[in-house]
């Protein structure tokens, strides 16, 4: 075989084309440049991918405190998103609103959300989701959420810091069935109803309901963790702190007890039959009236869809004081801007929920924001519903409305990030494989 090839003389080589080597050099330099750019791009992509994966792991305690700008609500709240992250993974900063959003017709897809007071950040409160039957309060300054349990006795409450994502356990000192009622304007005290499970009643279905029926009032000092029992106030249904924070109004049956923070009763204000104190926001901004809504003596508002309007009436604290006229068509009274303006949720004839500023003297209404209650929940099979709506009542005096921007729902869930990172990793791997083959 070798002889056969040896006998094959090569044809004489033609001269090389003009500029052959120059073209080689030009192409070689271009190839080197492309390779460097490609390598840099690949490494940049890798670094960015890892950064995107790792950033949420970085402790967020060093985040700056809430900015000192005017708090506001978006002119419309963002629609439902299954990708919304949690407060614990990505702290949103101070919140203007907290509500439960979604539907549970086919699947339980309710989300306990907080909405930023300074920008359009939406986060789920993980501590609420972790509880079996949660109940929660948003602090008046919008920086904390207090989380309790509705089912059975509990020995502690969870305090979630919205500016850092950290959570702290508040030991109750004993085991109680608890119903969270109201948070004082200075953020120090929380009024709650507490009951010890009565074994004769069997397994409690709702601690909240037991605390309502059999419980007594307790005033919890969050700064020390100690709570003061006020046994004289039994079966507390609703509570609201006075604007100056020095007193608390607590409804028991058809009477509202006015107490100082040591639990000393200062006055009792009767409310009409079938009326109940507005939870959390029932004390007017000038401290002269108590706001009431219809109440059948047993029902609690938590967990009910905010769709039905009712009439708010006012009861003067001091006898002889003329009360403001009733305000009709209010779903929830949420707080006060000043003595003449209150913030309330209302619903139109189609059940669409909005946030309004209501003027007591003139009866004027101004829409501040709207909720998306369209067919976008449960994979676009059900209407989205809002329940348990609360506002950061301490931020309402200066509240503005901002144009809603692209909603910040926080980092994607880990599983989804991993899935999204796979194609990127594949591209990087493919690039290196191709480069290796070419070289």
């Amino acid at each position, binding site marked *: *075989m070798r002889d056969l*090839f040896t006998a*094959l003389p090569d044809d004489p080589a033609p001269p090389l084309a003009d500029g*052959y*080597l120059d073209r080689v050099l030009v192409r*070689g*330099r271009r*190839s080197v440049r492309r390779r460097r750019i490609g390598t840099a791009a690949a490494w940049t992509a890798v670094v960015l991918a890892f950064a995107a994966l790792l950033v949420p792991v970085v402790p967020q305690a060093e985040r700056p405190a809430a900015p000192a700008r005017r708090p506001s609500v978006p002119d419309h709240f963002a629609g439902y998103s299954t990708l919304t992250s949690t407060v614990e993974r990505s702290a949103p900063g101070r919140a203007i609103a907290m509500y439960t959003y979604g539907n549970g017709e086919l699947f339980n897809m309710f989300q306990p959300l907080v909405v930023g007071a300074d920008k359009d950040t939406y986060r789920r409160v993980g501590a609420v989701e972790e509880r079996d039957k949660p109940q929660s309060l948003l602090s008046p300054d919008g920086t904390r959420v207090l989380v309790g349990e509705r089912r059975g006795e509990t020995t502690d409450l969870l305090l979630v810091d919205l500016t850092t994502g950290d959570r702290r356990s508040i030991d109750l000192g004993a085991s109680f069935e608890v119903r969270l009622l109201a948070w004082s304007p200075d953020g120090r005290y929380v009024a709650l109803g507490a009951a010890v499970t009565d074994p004769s009643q069997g397994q409690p279905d709702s601690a909240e309901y037991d605390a309502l029926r059999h419980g007594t009032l307790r005033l919890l000092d969050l700064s020390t963790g100690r709570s003061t029992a006020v046994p004289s106030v039994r079966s507390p249904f609703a509570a609201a702190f006075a604007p100056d924070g020095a007193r608390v109004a607590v409804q028991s049956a058809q009477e509202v007890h006015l107490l100082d923070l040591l639990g000393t009763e200062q006055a009792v204000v009767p409310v009409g039959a079938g009326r109940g104190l507005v939870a959390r926001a029932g004390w007017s901004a000038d401290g002269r009236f108590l706001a009431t809504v219809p109440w059948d003596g047993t029902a609690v508002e938590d967990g009910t869809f905010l769709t039905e309007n009712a009439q708010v009436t006012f009861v003067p604290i001091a006898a002889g004081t003329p009360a403001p006229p009733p305000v009709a068509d209010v779903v929830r009274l949420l707080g006060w801007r000043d003595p003449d303006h209150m913030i309330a949720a209302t619903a139109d004839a189609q059940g669409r929920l909005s946030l309004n500023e209501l003027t007591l003297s003139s009866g004027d209404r101004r829409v501040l924001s709207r909720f998306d209650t369209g067919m976008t929940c449960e994979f676009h099979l059900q209407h989205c519903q809002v329940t348990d709506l609360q506002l950061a009542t301490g931020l309402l005096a200066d509240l503005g409305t901002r144009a809603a921007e692209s909603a910040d729902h926080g980092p994607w869930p880990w599983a989804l990030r991993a899935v999204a990172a796979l194609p990127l990793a594949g591209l990087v791997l493919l690039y290196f494989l191709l480069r290796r083959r*070419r*070289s």
Partner: protein
Amino acid sequence: MRDEQEFVEYVRARMPVLRRLAYRLCGQWAAADDLVQECLVALYRHWRKAAAAESVDAYVRAILVHAYLAERRRPWARRVQPAAEVPVPAMSPPGIEDRVDVRAALGRLTRGQRAVLVLRYWEDLDVAQTAAALGCSPGTVKSQTSYAMAALRRLLGGDAS
């Protein structure tokens, strides 16, 4: 820049050898020059690695053979076409028909078979050198050589030995 000067000096010195190997693989000078250009661009990219290799010639030969074989894996970019038919000059010198027969038969082999025969018998490389150029084991070189020779014999009507 110094690397580029060394590269240019090397290419100028070894260009005839590279063109000859490329021609033996491709069977056409135009295709051979394209193949050499592909090889030299890759060599430019990896010149430092090549210059540090034990044998620069062996390194470059491997690049060139890989570029030749890679063309069969790139159906969308076939720039180097093996000669399917070798034109016979009008004035044929003595023995020219035999040479044409062998080259025509080579052109009908697969690229892998053609490469292994060219390297082993035309470039006179041993099994280890051929394996290094092809990027395979010596055992594979031996088996592929055997298959290629059998194929060439069939194409030449059993005369090759």
